[in-house]
């Protein structure tokens, strides 16, 4: 691991200013993703700004009837919150399908959203990877791409976003609140937080380096049956090959987002009109234009079947 300096500021504005002040500074929250990458020297920050002392660890009701989740709320606490379990079941389920009890006790809401890809070539510093080293190429394109993206990728990168929670946040239309070093606050719809790789795969999100996530807000509950269905190589403690977050109303209308397919949680609102007609029609509409590799073409069939199973579960 490369050496770094460290500070633990007491307010969000100070934290953002602390990152802006120094080159190669980064926020650290639970550390479960950043430290992993620092040990491998995939991330080499020169300065760490610990955000655990910012008082951003509460879940509050909003005047609109939703919830405002502090950026530092641990994944365990979010999944265990009574309101989340009752009104946002898809979110609780997605959180509980991710990682392990130990990791969820450390992992935070913001850190989970901003965790980096699990592309094996991103992790292997001996390989070309445009995300890790811009301009070096993409070893995954001709490599083992079973876990990688089937849609929304580019010639430069076919990585997927690994978060389960983010898929549920996307189906719920969460918004992300940030503050920057100048003290300016901004609200970003979750659909605009994560990017497609394009020719800048090194940028996972639309955030500026000194932009601190302060909270994630959920609109008022959608009701309906809420399902998160994750397919992985073992029954627990593995990243998704494909996952489906669905909110289905009694009349069969609803919303659906997919995980494991793209560089961001994949939701196509226009395809949701097909939901009453079933999984096949919906998946075909949502995944039109997919560009799988021979290794991961199975994900298209798997996505349709996982959606089918999710819809069946929602009707049960």
């Amino acid at each position, binding site marked *: 691991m490369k050496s770094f300096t460290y500070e633990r500021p007491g307010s969000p504005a100070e934290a953002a200013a602390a990152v802006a002040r120094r080159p190669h500074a980064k926020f650290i929250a639970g550390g479960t993703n950043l430290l992993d990458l620092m040990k491998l020297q995939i991330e080499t920050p020169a300065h760490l700004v610990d955000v655990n002392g910012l008082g951003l660890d509460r879940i509050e009701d909003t005047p609109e009837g939703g919830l405002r989740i502090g950026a530092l709320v641990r994944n365990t606490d979010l999944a265990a919150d009574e309101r989340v379990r009752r009104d946002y079941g898809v979110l609780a389920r997605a959180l509980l399908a991710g990682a392990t*009890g130990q990791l969820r006790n450390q992992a935070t809401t913001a850190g989970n959203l901003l965790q980096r890809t699990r592309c094996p070539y991103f992790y292997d510093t001996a390989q070309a990877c445009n995300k890790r080293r811009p301009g070096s190429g993409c070893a995954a394109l001709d490599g083992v791409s079973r876990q990688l993206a089937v849609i929304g990728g580019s010639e430069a990168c076919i990585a997927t976003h690994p978060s389960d929670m983010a898929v549920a946040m996307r189906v719920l239309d969460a918004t992300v609140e940030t503050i920057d070093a100048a003290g300016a606050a901004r609200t970003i719809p979750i659909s605009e937080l994560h990017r497609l790789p394009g020719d800048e795969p090194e940028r996972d999100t639309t955030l500026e380096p000194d932009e601190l996530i302060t909270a994630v807000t959920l609109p008022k509950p959608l009701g309906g049956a809420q399902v998160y269905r994750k397919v992985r190589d073992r029954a627990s403690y593995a990243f998704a090959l494909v996952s489906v977050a669905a909110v289905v109303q009694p009349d069969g209308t609803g919303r659906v987002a997919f995980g494991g397919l793209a560089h961001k949680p994949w939701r196509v609102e226009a395809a949701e009109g097909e939901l009453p007609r079933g999984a096949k029609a919906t998946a075909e509409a949502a995944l039109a234009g997919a560009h799988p590799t021979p290794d991961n073409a199975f994900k298209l069939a798997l996505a349709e079947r996982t959606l089918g199973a999710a819809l069946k579960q929602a009707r049960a």
Partner: protein
Amino acid sequence: MAGSSANAALAALPEIAKAGPAGTGGDAPVTARMAFTVNGERRELDLDLRTSLLDALREHLHLTGSKKGCDHGQCGACTMIVNGRRINGCLTLAVMHQGAEITTIEGLGTPDALHPLQAAFIRHDGYQCGYCTPGQICSGVAVLEEIRAGIPSHATGDLTRAPDVSEAEIRERMSGNICRCGAYSNIVEAMTAFAGDPSSRSQA
């Protein structure tokens, strides 16, 4: 506490700024004073900021009960209980735990006064080589607390109800502790026995 460590770290900045290539992390260590309570005893250390909580305990406090299997959050051998919650000691920096209360296997029981879950592991053969065992036991103690506190898991059927101590719950919640020897079914038996023992409640 956190403040003074931050200052110590910041005071060392010029060194590091010289050491690193073009502003990225460098090679010269930056140290800071860290203080936490480990198994009831207050400990203070001057450590390289890069030191994980696991390495602080194992290499510097010589508490080698917590094990390093993977150093990447993938095996659970380093599981310890920090402020009442189990975490992976390998994926967190010691400096982030100023003032914390840390419990390792050494703090749960001793050879003369075993923690009831340790005794249950022995009774039910919950190990072979024993390497994963300290992590399994720290995790297991915390898992039963989590179930009692009503924290749900992937195996919980109805999210609006309190979870129960079932085999499915134990298996899912213990999935972050890998056992290379495959002692899983005996670990579940040991935990089930411990959970059913009313005297276990105050022992965690």
